[in-house]
């Protein structure tokens, strides 16, 4: 049986995940956004996760500010220290713009992509997810796999662990769980190997 062509759907998922990692702002982080998020979680059997986010948001005086403070602490500058800078090189080279960032940009270029003037660094998680989405749109499955294996998963696992352990807000724990789910390798039988 041949697999259905899901590439456009996967592209949409990657784009959505990239969106989830943007700095929280009421321009886009509105009711409609959360409905879509809860719907996706529901489809995956993650209703509880959705409920937890909803509860935290409903209980907040200013949920956008809470998410902004948390985003700043987790990904920009935080006290006691920035938890999980969203750049591959930080995990692989212990610096911004290390070799790993260079290799990431080179990979984009090989595939005929580049970064816009106002883009963040090439190895920012948002750009990596955007790139995966563009590869999916082009049905470049091999490229997608190669990028995931060589340039995404090696650092993402560390990033994911840090966010999971240190995030105070369920939104970010759930988002990194989603990213993990959609980028994780599986063995032949569809089992996802345990992290070890």
């Amino acid at each position, binding site marked *: 049986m041949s697999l259905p062509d899901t590439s456009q759907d996967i592209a949409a998922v990657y784009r959505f995940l990239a969106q989830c990692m943007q700095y929280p702002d009421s321009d886009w982080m509105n009711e409609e956004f959360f409905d879509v998020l809860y719907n996706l979680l529901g489809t*995956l059997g993650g209703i509880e996760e959705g409920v937890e986010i909803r509860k935290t948001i409903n209980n907040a005086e200013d949920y956008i500010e809470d998410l902004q403070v948390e985003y700043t602490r987790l990904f*920009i500058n935080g006290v006691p*220290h*920035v938890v999980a800078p969203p750049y591959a090189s930080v995990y692989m080279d212990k*610096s911004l713009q290390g070799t790993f960032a260079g290799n990431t940009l080179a990979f984009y270029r090989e595939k005929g992509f580049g970064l816009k003037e106002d883009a963040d660094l090439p190895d920012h998680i948002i750009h990596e997810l955007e*790139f995966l989405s563009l590869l999916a749109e082009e049905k470049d499955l091999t490229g997608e796999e190669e990028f995931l294996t060589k340039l995404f998963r090696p650092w993402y696992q560390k990033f994911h662990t840090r966010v999971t352990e240190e995030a105070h807000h369920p939104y970010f724990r759930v988002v990194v769980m989603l990213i993990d789910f959609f980028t994780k390798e599986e063995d032949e039988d569809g089992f996802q190997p345990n992290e070890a």
Partner: protein
Amino acid sequence: MAFNLTRRKFLQTASLAAASVPLSKVVSASTGVTKTPLDAKGTFGDKTVVGGICEMCFWRCQLVGKVRDGRLMKLEGNPKSIDNGTAICARGNAGVKLLYDVDRLKYPMKNVGKRGAPKWKRISWKEALDECGSKLKSTVDKHGAQGICVFPHGASAKYPMHYFERTVGTHNVSEASFFQCRGIRDTAYVASIGKAPGEKIDMPNTKVLFFIGDHLGENVHVSHIKQYVQGLQNGAKLIVADPRFSASAAKADIWVQIKPGTDTAYMLAIMNYLVKNNKYDKAFVEDHTEGFEEFAAAISEWSLEKAAKECDIPAEQIKEVAEMLAANAPHVGVHPGRHVSWHGNDFQRQRALACLAGILGAYYVKGGWVPAKGPKVGGVSWAKEDHGHKYDLNYDHHEDEKVYPFNPPGTPTELIRDCAISGKPYPIKSCVVWGQNPMQTIPGQQKMKDLFNAMDFVMCVDVMPTDVTMWADILLPESSYLERFDYIKKGTQWDLSKEHQQYISARMPLVPAMFERKDQIYITNEIAKRMGHESKIPVKTIEEMVDKSLATANLSIEKLKAEDGIHIQPGKDPYGIPEDFTVMLFNEDIEDAGYPGAPTYKPVPDVPKGYARLLYGRAPVHTFNRSQNNVWLHNAMPDNPVWLNDEVAAKLGIIDGDTVGFVNSEGVESATTTTVKVTPGIRKDCVYMYHGYGSANPLMTIGVGAGVDDQALITKLAIDPETGCSGMRNNFVKLIKDGKVLEIQA
């Protein structure tokens, strides 16, 4: 927590299609990654970018950057440089790590927590600038311009400092580089020779170098070190007064292991000996000094024996020093030093240095103090306006004279802090910190905290989240020296005896600024617009500022780029004394102001029983707290071991490598510990450590808690009476080991 599907299953089912349809409705239309034309890899190959000017320290060596596809891979000295040449120091090299330090400030942030215990929220530039502009304006509206105090530092802080001083009109500006560092040197030399001395000693061509506390080798500035090493290679003798066996002491012909605080007595004895024994330069004294008689009389009490006793050194050694100076005069380099805010008696010590060079005739001659004749380049900034004395805290209105008559530019720090904390004589309610970390540059951390707590508004601009940034309401990220235009660096060839040449260079970015970092012109102008000063803005962009400056020398950014970042032109012979050059051996203006007109020694407090005097200095691979979070430099020197005399250590039962903390004579304990370096190379009554360690800010993930912060232990403030500058070496400590406080037996 895990989803109850596998990815494969999910992707195979119809659920993906169902779930994915609405997804695209809530994503933004554009992406940062975009389709580009295919280019060969070589298109993105390595490039050498010219125009870098280092600012890992103030020396500002000229750089080139090796850039690969937008990433700065390596910094090197600009081969065209006639100053540092291709050489840069360890810190210069490690600039790459500052540029890409993940802890660096990236976006404007607002503190939605408390001052000192911040909760940061990223905000837009517009929101940040609106808040800064409106808060500062409201302070001026309510309390007047004097209601704002400013703590600036570095090349990027000049433009905003001028804005607040000249246009807004506050006197309340305190630069650490003046009030906690070299201001005393500069004003003492102005009062002695009419000019600030810089470090303008013709070291390559000298016969004797005379240092008081200078520790070149640990204190590294590339062309300065080149000059020093060249001088030693050429056979210069070296005389070093230092309680510690410093890198310079280790190379010295005479090491004077002087008691801290007594340097002036030592120099007075040298000068008195030279005068009494007719070993001074009579012709020079006749032609180029004033007040010799009064000077000679004032210092006449300083026999070798008296000084020997005061300084705890042999009289014979002082004589040996004096003889060596006399035998080689006038080709003697009496180094003015740089960081000289030591004991609160420093103006007089700096005067003594200037006068010693005077009676040796060591000005404008080979090997003496020789200001190179550099090129002229005009500057551009906010127009000067007169704001009178009414709100000048350094002005005594009853007496109609200055409180500290020989203050460096700005207002003495303590006057500002006292006023801000007490609200007297007027309220100070907003504070602007720009590139300075007053928590570690200014002694008395509690006082600094009290100042911040007394403010209605605090804003900080910096590249790193230094300790002070924790006290900001709004924190703005500045582009670093590798990401912006600004400073014009000019000078001459480093060895004055070689072909006379001049150079002009301007700082240019080696890579574009990352994230949302902005330069000082943008930030200042935007605040100025919001404070109602738009019409007075002198330049719109930083490029315009640099171009306008360069235009005064018939240059431009474009021309400089075409000349590999450095313009070189013929220079002038710097030797030969100007006719009107005068050394004020006795200065009547100083006497009229109520201070001694001839250099005078004032004893400093003695070390209390059980304590040692805390001394600090520079490490070769660090520029104080500016580099403490730099991973390469941190690895090279991760902490600051405390130097402890070996005999003292034996009595205390301490061995090399032991871990200790400190408590000072006012009961302040160090927050962290460091290791002990047991050595015969330090006097028994002192301990020594490198300055700039032990950051308390957890945002500095590398530097936090590494080593001990000496500044935290400097709680007793001495104020230099002539200048109002801080003296920081009258603090005393005991060691704490395994929780036990140890009495030091010197």
